[in-house]
């Protein structure tokens, strides 16, 4: 059974694939729905049927590569040609999904002809680790906040019940129920609610993690030097090692700049990754920070964005002591095995 649940639409209850945007809608406005399957997904057929609506002018599919093939196989001749994006490459770090969809919306607006942009997004999928799934699910919720109300995007976030861990699906159902107000209206577009749905706390920092205290920008060189020692020992390529050092540099600089003037940068190795983490007295005020492409001519506010672009996973949490931001870089073999 596949159930469609509107996330930010308070008037329409859609129980089947439907790209019409709701009966009697005066003009295109952003709609976001979750497609939660607890049985056979039938991805290709279902998306092909959504695409058949005459309102649909363009289609973007951000999903694992296997889904691209499923949809291609199900499309009748003469159907629209979707733009396919491999979620495991472009949104390996789930935070990058926000900009992928904002860019798709901007592009569709540029050649708008009154039709709908149909968006299919499967970022919460069984190829991800538990930590990745938690971030991917948070980003799916944040899409409701990030996409402008006036856009013509009809976005469906897909959850494959047959393949996802049962606990994960359970959580999606529970949060959907919790996110519905007393009058049955969905509340997931509510910023304060989104903040309260912050994913579980970060896993423990291992004891052998190297700690570098930083209380002035002059300490950044030492942060980079220490991180490069770890990446060399871990066997990362030079280019990837430079990425890790850059990420650590940006996180530590943010601690000095926004985290009370000081912070701690931690770096450690796991069996399959190098991890860096900043801890400081900061606080997350904007859950979308670093997820939206900065204006090109802005002279600041680019650090966290770059960290999101180059990391395989970024996790930010308010903690009892302030703010922790963790960036994970997979070792080459691990990165290949999980794709």
């Amino acid at each position, binding site marked *: 059974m596949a159930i469609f649940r509107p996330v930010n639409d308070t008037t329409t209850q859609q129980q089947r694939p439907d790209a019409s945007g709701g009966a009697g809608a005066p003009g295109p406005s952003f709609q976001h729905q979750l497609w939660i399957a607890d049985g056979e997904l039938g991805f290709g057929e279902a998306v092909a049927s959504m695409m058949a609506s005459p309102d649909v002018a363009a289609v973007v599919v951000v999903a694992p590569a296997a889904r691209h093939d499923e949809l291609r196989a199900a499309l009748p001749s003469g159907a629209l040609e979707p733009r396919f994006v491999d979620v495991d490459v472009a949104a390996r770090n789930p935070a990058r999904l926000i900009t992928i969809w904002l860019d798709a919306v901007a592009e569709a607006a540029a050649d708008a002809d009154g039709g709908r942009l149909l968006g299919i997004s499967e970022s919460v999928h069984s190829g991800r680790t538990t930590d990745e799934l938690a971030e991917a699910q948070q980003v799916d919720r944040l899409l409701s906040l990030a996409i402008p109300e006036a856009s013509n995007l009809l976005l469906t976030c897909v959850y494959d019940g047959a393949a996802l861990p049962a606990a994960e699906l359970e959580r999606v159902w529970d949060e959907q129920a919790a996110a519905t107000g007393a009058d049955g209206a969905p509340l997931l577009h509510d910023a304060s609610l989104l903040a309260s749905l912050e994913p579980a706390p970060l896993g423990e920092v291992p004891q052998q993690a190297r700690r570098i205290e930083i209380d002035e920008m002059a300490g950044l060189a030492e942060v980079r030097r220490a991180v490069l020692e770890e990446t060399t020992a871990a066997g990362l390529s030079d280019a990837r090692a430079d990425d890790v050092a*850059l990420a650590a540099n940006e996180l530590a600089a943010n601690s000095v700049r926004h985290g009370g003037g000081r912070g701690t940068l931690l770096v450690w190795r796991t069996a399959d990754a190098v991890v860096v983490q900043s801890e400081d007295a900061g606080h997350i005020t904007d859950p979308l920070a670093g997820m939206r492409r900065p204006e090109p001519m802005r*002279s600041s506010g680019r650090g966290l964005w770059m960290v999101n672009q180059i990391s395989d996973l970024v996790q930010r949490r308010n903690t009892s002591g302030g703010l922790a931001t963790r960036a994970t870089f997979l070792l080459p073999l691990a990165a290949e095995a999980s794709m």
Partner: protein
Amino acid sequence: MGADRLQLAASDEGDERVIALTGELDAATVPVLQSALDANQAHDGVLVLDLEGLDFVDSSGLGAIVECHRTRTEGGGTLALRSLSDRVATVLRYAGLDGHLTIRGAA
């Protein structure tokens, strides 16, 4: 400490003012570049940053370059970058700045 991690050398090539950067451009060393850019803002010809000797750049360093590019462009002038290493070009791309700055002889 720290400031000596970035060295600047200015020279004139025709009516162009060239500032060559050597070392690491980060939030600690960016004031050095900032002062040099401010001091040369009035230069009438093209202002060129030669980045051949630059080993590292972070978002703060890029911010100073963007700021200078914007100020000069608004005043009808030009800031050009040249001799970017692969790494510096990569970081420009990470920052979403490729295509937004004037780069000469792109590798």
